[in-house]
């Protein structure tokens, strides 16, 4: 069904940058940071492939550590559509033969990467949280599995060795203007396919819970939709956003864009305040890496208290408004 490469001459690490609406996604810089570390260990080049329309500041990728940026510039790449992207990336990889290919585990990356891997007849490790090089110079890909209950170390016996990497798992590469600008423009190998066409793109509102530094999250302890206003107020005082457990999405009280957890968003804010959330494993999977976790729950045996740094056993309907009032008071004093 696919040919695959022989494992001999491939060299170098290729990061596939992601952009949407002309803006480079920050996961690309994180990949370059980790890629740099791996490239130095193996004494290999670190390059970057960017597909997109006109006017993307591709040199940014050089500043962040890519030696060569290959910029496949064409308006067909302005819409994110896997089939056309895949055809072009596969042709590029077959020509350049990198040994390692890294892609961000964003929605688009996760949808695109398996197609590329399958076309190249190679393996792909999804959602990696760490990457290492072993004694034989092969890539060890570390990823959570079984709904985050375990970590698997995975090797790929073919080339290229491919992985998608979770967003916000690694720090961004530092921007260094001394790095040489080195952009090579590449013509697309294939133009748009007739098999799949994008009819419409509707910008989602700016609400992106994964970018919030503070999240005040509500669960089934919230009895009515209107009561979420209580959490909104606290979030406002703290400059944060309101998140929810799946229970509230299922109950039609909140949008799924606000859902935190295994089937929602994975978040890593500075502070996560869980209000009336029991702490089911699927919820924890989305927030346990927050820097500080605060929990308010009326049930002292709720599992959320196991992972909270600070917990309060009590009725959130009393605790939260009082907390907000107190913070406002302190604000006023200052």
């Amino acid at each position, binding site marked *: 069904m696919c040919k695959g490469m022989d494992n001999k001459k491939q060299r170098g690490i290729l990061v596939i940058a992601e*952009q949407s609406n002309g803006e480079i996604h920050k996961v690309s810089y994180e990949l370059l940071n980790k890629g740099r570390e791996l490239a130095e260990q193996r004494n290999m080049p670190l390059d970057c492939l960017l597909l997109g329309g006109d006017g993307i500041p591709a040199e940014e990728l050089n500043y962040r550590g890519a030696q060569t940026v290959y910029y496949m510039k064409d308006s067909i790449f302005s819409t994110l559509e896997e089939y056309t992207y895949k055809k072009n990336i596969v042709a590029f990889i077959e020509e350049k033969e990198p040994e390692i290919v890294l892609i961000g585990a964003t929605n688009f990356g996760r949808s695109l990467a398996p197609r590329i891997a399958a076309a190249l007849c190679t393996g*792909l490790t999804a959602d990696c949280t760490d990457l290492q090089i072993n004694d034989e110079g092969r890539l060890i890909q570390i990823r959570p599995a079984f709904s985050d209950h375990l970590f698997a*170390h995975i090797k790929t016996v073919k080339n290229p060795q491919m992985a998608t990497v979770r967003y916000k798992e690694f720090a961004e590469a530092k921007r260094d203007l001394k790095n040489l600008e080195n952009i090579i423009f590449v013509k697309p190998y294939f133009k748009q396919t007739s098999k799949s066409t994008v009819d419409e793109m509707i910008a989602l509102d700016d609400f992106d819970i994964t970018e919030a530094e503070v999240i005040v999250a509500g669960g089934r302890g919230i009895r009515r939709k209107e009561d979420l206003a209580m959490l909104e107020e606290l979030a406002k005082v703290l400059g944060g956003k309101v998140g929810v457990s799946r229970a509230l999405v299922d109950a039609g009280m909140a949008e799924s864009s606000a859902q935190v957890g295994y089937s929602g968003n994975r978040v890593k804010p500075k502070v996560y305040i869980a209000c009336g959330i029991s702490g089911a494993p699927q919820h924890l999977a989305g927030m346990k890496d927050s820097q500080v976790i605060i929990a308010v729950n009326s049930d002292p045996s709720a599992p959320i208290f196991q992972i909270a740094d600070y917990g309060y056993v009590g009725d959130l309907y009393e605790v939260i408004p009082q907390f907000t009032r107190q913070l406002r008071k302190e604000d006023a004093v200052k």
Partner: protein
Amino acid sequence: MNILVLVKEVPDMEKVKFDQEKGVVDRSSAEAEINPFDENALQAAVDQKEKEQKNVTVTVMTMGPQRAEKTLRDAYARGADKGVLLTDRKFGGSDTCATAKTLAAAIRKIGNFDLILCGEKSVDGDTAQVGAEVAEFLDIPHAYYVEEIRNLDHDSVQVTIENIGGDRQVRTMKLPALIGVTKNISRPKLPTVNRKLESLTIQVETITLQDLNGFMSEEECGFKGSPTKVSKIEIPKEVKKNNQVFREDFTAFLQSVTDVLTEKGIV
């Protein structure tokens, strides 16, 4: 219109136990069930059947051990028309690449599917890769994170993708096509008693490696055909946080929380 739903049998995540010392999953500790996300895919297919009274046949396919037949019967009870089980010792140890190849080979062999549905991810494998890889091996277009099938006619499907690059996207694909769905696409219904009883007597089609002769080789399947190898499993120890849980003393709680908020530069 022939719709195929790919379903996987997974252990019940609420009950399954992990052996931290040995680094293994004790699959006998929990009963197997249909992957929760695949229930949404199946319901979405059944909804199409009920909608507009289209002449739709829903087939479910799973690759797994013989006992996974139960999952196909369960799917029948939930409204599917037919079940296909891919089972063979030689399929054991498949990674996503080998799994997808085997599924694709069986799909080619049976032929004649217009739309293929799969779940967002499986809760055990957890890769969300199998669907797109199947699409690639069949050389058909796909879309992931689909929250709605807007329109399905004899030669195309129009879907809404929840979020791709910060946009909601409406896309039309020529059939055959594959879509991976999110939980928001449907509300899985419980099977009726009648269907449940009937499901016990239906014929499940079984496909082995031999049956796929001409569509895939032995080298391409199972452990041999898997380019990725698990070299180690780690089961993290439960982190016991040095945490403070307050009960009566609200003032002390507030103080601690305000301190940490200040430390983090938030207030």
